[in-house]
């Protein structure tokens, strides 16, 4: 029972910890890292589903005909490269925010915005 579902449960724990960082931490860089943790947990979920007990990597060889499922591998392979591009885009936006506000702390940014609204 535990071995049957352990992967899924750890994935959910990782996912929720990443989500916790995104919603509870005010530092924008740490939020991006939280999103990365969330993303990687989804990758682990997909790859866990593709695993076949006793199978091997999906590179065809003569000795066996039991392979893990190649389709999730393709999806996740491209998703990883897309995730680094979106991370870079997020970091670029943070760099611009830092230039405009001189901080990357969400609370401090909101305070500056409120001050500007009052004036």
């Amino acid at each position, binding site marked *: 029972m535990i071995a049957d579902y352990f992967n899924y449960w750890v994935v959910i724990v990782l996912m929720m910890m990443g989500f916790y960082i995104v919603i509870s931490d005010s530092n924008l860089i740490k939020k991006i890292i939280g999103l990365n943790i969330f993303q990687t947990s989804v990758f682990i979920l997909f790859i866990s589903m593709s695993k076949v007990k006793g199978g091997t*990597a999906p*590179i065809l060889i003569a000795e066996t005909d039991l392979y893990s499922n190649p389709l999730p591998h393709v999806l996740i*392979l*491209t998703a*990883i*490269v897309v995730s*680094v*591009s979106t991370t*870079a885009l997020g*970091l*670029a936006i943070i*760099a611009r925010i830092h230039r405009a506000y001189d901080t990357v702390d969400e609370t401090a940014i909101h305070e500056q915005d409120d001050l500007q609204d009052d004036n």
Partner: protein
Amino acid sequence: MDRRTSLIVREVCRLIIPAVMLFALYVQFHGEYGPGGGFQAGVIFAAAVILYALVHGRQKAQQILPTNTVVRFIVAGILLYAGVGVTTMVMGGNFLDYDVLLHGHQQAQHLGIFLIELGVGITVGAVMIAIFYTLDEFSE
């Protein structure tokens, strides 16, 4: 980044960087037989260039591989990929239907996969280098 890096770091990188680049090419062209392909090869090649830029400074790296050239490579890779698709359409097949490229069925598939993996590798590698250059330039 014009701080002096230590002798050990510089010498180790002198040894590592050519090997990493060679490995990137191996991963690119051997992706049909073992693990690997355009995505991984592009990233590994970019890692070699980024390592060089970290050790010797970004300006040195840009003397060898200027930003403009990198941006052209980004476009070239994706154009090569889409170009294969358009070529197959012009030759009478469907979009990215490699069978019309050559007479033999499997040879045509090999050629098609080789070309689009090359496109993927060029674009991914160039994108990673360009993003690193831009972020590093902005930090000055």
